[in-house]
Structures are given as C-alpha cells and as structure tokens.
C-alpha cells in the first residue's frame, strides 16, 4: 500500500502536535503528515500546494470553519472531520459540505489510522455519534435536515445500518448482524453519505432559486 499524505488542519498547535506524533509513531509506512494548517487561509494554501490525500479537518477554525475550506477548495482532497464539537449542526454541516467522515477527538490513534485508510479508499466513516446525528437529522429532530422527502429518505436497510453503527458496531459486525457482506455495508454507508450531501446540494439550489440567483 502506498503511503497516504495527510494534512492536519486545527487551530490548536498542541492538538496538531499530538496528532502528528501519534500518526508518526503508529502509522509510519502507512501515513505521512506532510503539513499543518491553523486557519482557513493557510489550509486552503496548504491544500493547493501539497495536494494531500487526506485532510484531517477541525470543524471550528478561525476564518469560517471547516465548511468554509470545503467551499473554497471543493473536494479535490478527501476530508475527514476531526472535531471536539458536540453540536449536531457543526458536525452535520461539515459532512454536508463534502467531508467523507467524522470522528471525535478522543478517538484512539489506531481507530484514526483506520478511518484515514477508509476515507482515502473512498469509503465513508461514521462514528457512533455521527450515526446518531444522521438518524436525528433524517428523523427531523435536528432542524437543519429538511430532507427532500422523495429523494433523500433513508431506506430501511440504510437506517438499520446507521442504527447499528450508532450502537457501536464495527462494519464487520454490522455485516454479520444483518447477514450481508462488508462490501454491502460500505455501499449503504456511502449512499447515506451521498443522500446527506445531496440533500444539502438540493437545499442550496432551492435557496439560490428562491432568491432568483440562478
């Protein structure tokens, strides 16, 4: 496997140092931290210059936060949100802007490495907490959802997968529980992510057309 280049974007130097140290200690040969950035501007610059495979992205950043970076650079790199925030709006917001996954900052180094591998491979990474937020969003409890009824409703299977992830199951265990293959679980997870991001794009279109911008 080739070495994945990683950019750490966080406004706390201590946290960047900690993540870098852990990734270098445990992930040598698998990942390489090619740079760090501390705010939106420096992150956009670093992404353009370094072209990292995976960007570890804090949700709260000076200059507009993680969503602002995603808005400015698009999804040329793969983004994994790594946040201490507990607010569903923050987390869902960065996912809907195009991040491929979300993990909390108290994640262990091994789990983080695993998550980096998975998003780099095109998979979506849902922590139990994010799965909970997603279920809440699609159930309409979180108001930002406003999910398009026809297109964006979760299928029963997707919902079931999300619930199991929220219950703390690993993909392998979800597959075993539902008598499906891990590949199928990944497909469901990716389609949930797509629906989340799609609904945000739909929302954006609606917002723009409502204001006669397009």
């Amino acid at each position, binding site marked *: 496997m080739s070495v994945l280049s990683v950019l750490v974007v966080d406004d706390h130097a201590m946290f960047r140092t900690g993540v870098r140290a852990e990734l270098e200690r445990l992930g040598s040969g698998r990942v390489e931290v090619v740079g760090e950035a501390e705010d939106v501007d420096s992150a956009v610059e670093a992404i353009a210059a370094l072209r990292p495979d995976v960007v570890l992205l804090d949700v709260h950043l000076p200059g507009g936060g993680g969503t602002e970076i995603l808005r400015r650079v698009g999804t040329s790199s793969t983004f994994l949100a790594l946040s201490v925030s507990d607010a569903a709006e923050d987390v869902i917001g960065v996912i809907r802007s195009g991040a491929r996954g979300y993990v909390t900052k108290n994640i262990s180094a091994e789990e983080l490495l695993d998550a980096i591998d998975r998003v780099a491979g095109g998979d979506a990474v849902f922590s*139990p907490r994010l799965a*909970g937020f997603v*279920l809440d969003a699609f159930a309409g*409890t979180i108001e930002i959802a406003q999910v398009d009824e026809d297109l964006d409703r979760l299928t029963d299977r997707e919902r079931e997968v999300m*619930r199991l992830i929220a219950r*703390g199951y690993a993909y392998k265990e979800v597959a075993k529980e539902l008598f499906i293959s891990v590949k199928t679980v990944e497909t469901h997870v990716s389609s949930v992510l797509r629906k989340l991001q799609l609904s945000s794009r739909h929302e954006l279109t609606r917002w723009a057309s409502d204001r006669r911008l397009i």
Partner: protein
Amino acid sequence: MTTAANDAPGRTGPGAYRRAYRPADRRIVAGVSAGLAEHLRLPVVWVRVGFVIATFIHGAGVLGYLLLWWFLPLQAPQDSPGLASAHRRGLRSGSRGPSRREIVQSAAIGAIGLGVLGLMALTGGWLQGWMLPLLLVVTGIAVVWRMFDDATWNAWLRQTEGPAYVARLLVGVTLIGLGAIYVLTVNRGWSAAVDFGSALVIALAGIGLILGPWILGLWTDLGRERLERIRSQERADVAAHLHDSVLQTLALLQKNADDPGTVATLARRQERELRDWLYGRQGEVTTFAAALREMAGETEANHRIVVEVVTVGDAVLDDAVRALVAATGEAVVNAAKHSGAARVDVYAERVLGSDGARLEVFVRDRGTGFDPDAIAEDRLGIRNSIIGRAERHGGTARVRSTPDGGTEVALTMPVSGEKETS
C-alpha cells in the same frame, strides 16, 4: 489603611500624570476622602477632619466634598477577571470596604462637626438658618446613596424604560416643578411663574441646540460602556469557570500523572462538565437523554470506564422512563464490573412504531462476555435490576452475550406518544 491601589492606570512611571479618583472599595460616603488622601499621600483621617473644619468656613467643606464627588471618577478595584467574577457571584469570602474602626472614626468626626455647628447656631454665630437643614438633607442623600450597592444603583440610574423609569421621571418633574414654583411665587406671586416658565423654555431650547450633539455623544458612549461591561462580565464568568474546573483538574492530573486510570477518569469528567457548560446542558434533569447522560457520567466517575452515550430523539422523564434509565445504569455498571472492557456504548432511540412510541436502549461492551443461560439464575443484577425492572414498567429486556464477543443488553419501554421533547 491599605495603600495597595498604587498601581491604578495612568499612575505608573515617574513622570506619569497622576489622576485622582474615588476608590470604590474603600469609601464610607462617596470615597472622596479616601481618594484625596491617596492622591495627596496624606492619612485619610486628616483629610476627613479637614473637610469638617472647612465646613465652618461658609460651608466650603460640604461644597468641596460635593464638587469632588461630582468630578472625581469612581474607580472599581482592578481584580483579575476570575477573582472579580468570584466576588460578583459570591464565591469568595472576606469583606471589602473600610474597616469598622474607620467607619466609627468618621462618624465621630462628623458628629463632632455637627455638634460644633449646632452649638454655633444656638449661640447665634455666623450660621444662617438654612445651613442646618441643608446639612441634614445632604446626610440623608448620602445615607440613601450608600443603601444601594453600585450595581443596583447603576442599573436603577441608567434604566430608561419600564414603570420604575416612568415613576422616576414623574417624581423628578413634579419635584422640579414644585421647587421652581415655590422659589418664584414666594416673593412675587403667580405671574412670575409664567414669565419664568417661558424664559426657561427658550433658554432650554438654546441649551439644547448648543449641547445637543454633545449629549447625544455622551449617550452613545454610555451605551457602549454598558455593552463593554456586560462583555467583560461574561469574560469574567468564563475565566472563573476555567479557574474552578479546568485549572483544578489540570493540577490534579499533574499530581496523578503516574496513575493512568485516575488521569483518564479526571479527564473524562472534566470533558463532560465542560461540554455541559459550553452547550448549556446544566441544570435540572427533566428529559430521558439528559438523565441518561447524567447516569453515564456517574458511572464513569465511579467505575473508571468510558461510557459513550448516543441518543436519537428524547422523551419526558416519567416513572417508567426513570426505571429504564436505572436499568440501563445497571447494565452499564455490570459491563464495567464484569466485562473487562474499557468502554461501553449506550445507544438510545425514540422509535415510532405502529403501536405507538417506545424508547429503545442498547448497552454494548466488547468485553469477555458470558453465557446468559448458564449464569442467569444467580446474577441478581441482571434478573432483578435489569430484566425485572424493565418488565415491571411494561418494558422488555434482552441480554445477548457470547464469550469473547462482548455483551449487548437491549431494553425497550413504551412511552406516551405525544409528549416528545426535542
């Protein structure tokens, strides 16, 4: 008396311009004497005696005191934000302000002054008849002034809406009117009042034209100042919270650096507290999700295990839901005690089924596991506290465990359909 206030702003450096002020924390009436004493580097008693003596010279002492009261800015003590906030919230003991001895002393000086004054009035000295009433009025105002503390007084004085303001306005206008009418009519009768009234209106209009912009600017400054004060108080509260919680925890962490278990527990507890504080989840626990989080926090603290709670939807906390929380707690404690796992996932969801809403809770660990059929009989924790408790309130509980595969306890409880809180 303390001289600690030598580091007030604008007073540092040899050539610096020394500004006199009234120290808010050391005043008896208005702080003029204390401020002046500090400014002139004199003992405060001398200054007070000086004011009393000066009063005999055509009331210069009282007038001077009033003028200085008006012109000297009040200066609050410059504490660090955390300490200031602690004071404001009553978290610190120890009184500020002048000592009892000083108050008694000043009262004595004042009383002697009044006594001499009264004596002179009786013996028909230079004192005119109006001096004594004036002194009484000033003393009365001073007493009223001291009855309010700064915050109340400021808030009241600056209040510009509401019934209190209207009442104040009415009383003020009436008093001014009565005073003016009395002064004018006492010598020349009612016609003078009309003349004076029209003259006053014209004069006021002129003054308004001249001073209008200035007053407006002052008013804006006042608003800005108030905003700044609110902000700084907010900052102070944040600082105080950090001081009380985060700094303490960090100190404890340093002391226990060689005990990973304690460190982890402390860090988790601090994280949870900070989250609750940041996201405003403090206060009374009235919902299912909040109760679950509280339970998780207690178990984490008592059993040194990480409890991750994820909730979807919420419900009102009634007896059945309370029983569900208790059963969940028992399941988490079981996992902490017996599974050997470092972390327990708790997932709770409010599900809308065909037969109404129910709460589903899953408690999962990845510990050693056990065979539920083999030891269910003697595990009273599971039989009574989890399954029994759930069933007594109309719910169900199911324990699924495989050796080496961990344990999962699934609990369900029906809840009334319409009372969702989100």
